[in-house]
């Protein structure tokens, strides 16, 4: 049993809904109580989709439990097939129905419907949303692309790819797809099928006709892509084109598989991150400490961009996706930080406080934490929020994705000269730690119920002389916490007590920047 205030991922059947809702001609019959119908609003309200998700819920009640919930399920299947006339159906159970053990797969088979039915076994008490989406997509791909002959193609015919992974309710999937298609167009690689977003079950039968697969979101598409490699020998492009370097790597990898020239997608691209980052005014970005948390794909990509493309320093890196923990561990080792693998947002909050970042790149959860700590923040990953479906084109992938990332990560930070001025004139009456943004006023009193227990250092913290305390106050408030901690650490290590102005400056010299 786990105490949870907020969760990073929904249950696995919500993952299945993301796949079903992304596709056409597919209907999902979900054995579930009425409360589970809330999931519709994820799509119609958060993503603002114009159609209800293609999902029928059995909405069984307590009074049905004594009777025949299996019959209820069969009726729901029959009626959904008749009403919506899908090409194919998914059937499965949500967490409550899983306990009833009605076996939706077996029941739907017994109905003898005239359309293919793909049963889903999604263990709700064990797995989560992304796993559910990946498993659903894999089952669909196996079901519809399995047992087919790979057509013979002329050697001279251009090599084609499938794009696998974008779903409904995916973080910027809509816009990423546009950018990836642009890259492929530029080098003349035709797209065979995009799935699940916009595909029908019938389209899935054509997956074997491609020469290779692009795994856009490994969290969703990796199991399906691996199976396609095994079954049809289709290699997979596993570089996710988020960031300047990764986009270049992606184009090179695709060009090599397709046997085409990568140059048209790279030369003269409308990519401005590189120049903006090299631009002299970006000097102030150097070495800024960033804390990164999200799904594995976005977190690892963000770490590379932060270090190699913006000159930040990664001071924390983690993911809530245990399935992809290995790659995050590898990346964390490369950046010299401890990987944080947890789906407990309170642990993440504690890690953010401890690492004292100047910028947080995270999910909506970390955005709340950063707001409370008054640290700038940008959202880089699901779980999604209504704000993650902006009206404007706002990709993360490709050249334009890099531009969007530059803007959305850098704009929350204070500009360079402004930072200098504030450093020089610290006692400006209008800009100091007493003058908070008015919308944060309430947080002062409510605040750190969440603050993690100090790591012991706090209790053993040496006292400050009043001179040292007032000198500390001259440090701009947005870095003051770090200065305090560093000084206390420095003093504790050396047994200095109390902390004087001298200690403060000794510590400053010691830690430098």
């Amino acid at each position, binding site marked *: *049993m*786990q*105490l*949870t*205030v*907020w*969760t990073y*991922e*929904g*249950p696995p*059947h919500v993952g299945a809904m993301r796949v079903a809702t992304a596709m056409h001609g597919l209907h999902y019959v979900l054995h579930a*109580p*009425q*409360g*589970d*119908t*809330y999931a*519709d*609003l994820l799509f*119609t*309200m*958060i993503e*603002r*989709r*114009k*159609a*209800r998700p*293609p999902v*029928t*819920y059995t*909405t069984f*009640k*307590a009074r*049905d*439990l004594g009777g025949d919930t299996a019959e209820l399920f069969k009726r*729901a299947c029959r*009626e959904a097939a*008749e*009403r*919506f*006339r899908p090409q194919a159906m998914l059937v499965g159970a*949500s*967490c*409550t129905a899983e*306990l009833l053990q009605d076996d939706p797969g077996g029941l739907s088979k017994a109905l003898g419907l005239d359309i293919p039915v793909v049963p889903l076994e999604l*263990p*709700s*008490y*064990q797995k*989560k949303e992304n796993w559910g989406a990946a498993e659903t997509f894999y089952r669909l791909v196996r079901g519809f692309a399995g047992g087919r002959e790979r057509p013979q193609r002329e050697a001279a015919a251009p090599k084609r790819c499938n794009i696998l992974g974008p779903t409904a309710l995916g973080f910027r999937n809509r816009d990423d797809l546009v950018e990836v298609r642009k890259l492929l167009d530029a080098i003349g690689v035709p797209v065979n099928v995009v799935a699940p977003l916009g595909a029908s079950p019938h389209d899935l039968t054509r997956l074997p006709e491609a020469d290779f697969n692009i795994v856009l979101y490994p969290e969703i598409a990796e199991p399906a892509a691996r199976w396609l490699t095994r079954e049809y020998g289709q290699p997979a492009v596993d570089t996710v084109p988020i960031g300047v370097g990764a986009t270049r790597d992606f184009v090179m990898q695709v060009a090599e598989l397709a046997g085409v020239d990568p140059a048209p997608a790279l030369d003269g691209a409308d990519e401005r991150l590189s120049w903006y980052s090299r631009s002299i005014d970006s000097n102030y970005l150097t070495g800024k400490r960033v804390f990164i948390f999200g799904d594995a794909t976005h977190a690892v990509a963000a770490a590379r961009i932060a270090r190699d493309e913006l000159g930040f320093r990664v001071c924390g890196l983690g993911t809530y996706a245990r399935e992809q923990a290995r790659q995050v561990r590898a990346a964390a080792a490369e950046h010299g930080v401890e990987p944080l693998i947890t789906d407990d947002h309170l642990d993440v909050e504690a890690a953010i406080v401890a690492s004292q970042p100047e910028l947080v790149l995270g999910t*909506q959860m970390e955005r*709340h934490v950063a*707001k409370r700590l008054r640290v700038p923040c940008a959202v880089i990953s699901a779980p999604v*929020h*209504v704000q993650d479906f902006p009206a404007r084109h706002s990709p993360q992938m490709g050249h334009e994705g890099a531009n969007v990332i530059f803007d959305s990560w850098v704009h929350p930070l204070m500009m360079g000269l402004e930072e200098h001025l504030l450093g020089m004139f610290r006692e400006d009456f209008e800009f100091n730690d007493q003058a908070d943004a008015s919308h944060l006023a*309430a*947080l002062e009193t*409510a605040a750190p*119920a*969440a603050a993690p227990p100090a790591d012991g250092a706090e209790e053993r913290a040496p006292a400050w002389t009043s001179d040292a305390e007032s000198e500390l106050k001259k440090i701009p408030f947005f870095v003051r916490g770090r200065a305090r901690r560093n000084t206390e650490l420095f003093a504790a290590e050396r047994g200095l007590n109390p902390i004087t102005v001298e200690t403060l400056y000794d510590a400053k010299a010691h830690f430098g920047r």
Partner: protein
Amino acid sequence: MNAPARTQRAGPAGDGPAAAACSAAEPLRERGQHAVFCGLTSIIWLHRKMQDAFFLIVGSRTCAHLMQSAAGVMIFSEPRFATAIIDERDLAGMADLNEELDGVVARLVARRPDIRLLVLVGSCPSEVIKLDLGRAAQRLDSQHAPERRVISYSGSGIETTFTEGEDNFLTALVAEMPGEPAGAAPSLVVAGALADVVEDQMLRIFHGLGIARVAFLPARRSTALPAVGPNTRFLLAQPYLGATASALSARGAQRIAAPMPLGEEGTTAWLRAAAEAFGVADDRFDAITAPGRERARRAVARFRDRLEGRRVFLFPDSQLEPALARFLARETGAEIVEIGSPFLHRRHTEPEFALLPAGIAVSEGQDVDRQIERCRAARPDLVICGMGLANPFEAEGLTTKWSIEFVFSPIHGYEQAGDLAELLARPFVRRAALKVEV
């Protein structure tokens, strides 16, 4: 919306316009797919209403996800609710559920020592595995006494829809209410969560009427629950409190029947019922209520031209639907196409239906796809429906209003009558204002 049905089913009574034949006495009873929140969702307002209470849902990841999806977009500070997520180890018997729950509660209390009332809330999975939260609450209650009370109720979606979660919570609170001393002076309990400002307004009116001993359930603090007994009379301020009313009656309290205090007419009838029960003289009643009535009428009149003659279809959501329909029909001149409600408490809704014009289609429960078809066929001017349905209707060109807003906004009483009319008129005001098309 999903692709429209290709086959028009000739099902039992209730397809298409056939529904028009039903009435309050003989509503169309639907047992198909429901698209209504479960009772857990009530926690979204209850945890703000009672400030020293904490709601711990014992359920699944789905429960936690529901709470943050339904509430997450609105809540910025740390909520006073959480979910103890049952996992595989608990189900496989590898972990003792009660020990696990004790551990979760210990962690929670360490983090939030300010909790005075811990409420264990049952969910669909906890009900299906027959986890006895009542006993768990008793055990924890004795462990945590006297710092905090521990109680339980079920908000599970197999037993409750949306607002019925509050009904079950209040029922649990009734058991905690102290008994009134023998020979206690008559007192009034107003049951049903209301906005604080609304409570204050009503209290002023009751005091003006000379009804001095008035308490609200839920109270703002768990330690301030009113006493109850044979000299207690109670008024429902929300229509979904069937179990709460039974529990109060079982403790000897007497229900005062009245329509809900929505709009000028509803509020007056509601107050008058109380005034009659407490023997308030007519002239005093008129003197005290006249200014409010006048203000309410004036405020509603400002929106009448937006609403008069509009055809409104209400999907089932909070059980407030009959009262909303009565306000719409009688005070704004709207025409009601269908009143859907997840449940119709015969006796409690009687005063509403007595005021409504005859011949309005009424449905209880839901078969959402068929109801959507009825709605499409009727082409109403306004559809009041849940969040999952609204945007798809908008995309089809219908005008909608989120039904959940009537639960989340202060709409009761004289001073809010205009706000209620404004909420209902806003979709039309907005439609008229926008010069963009979809």
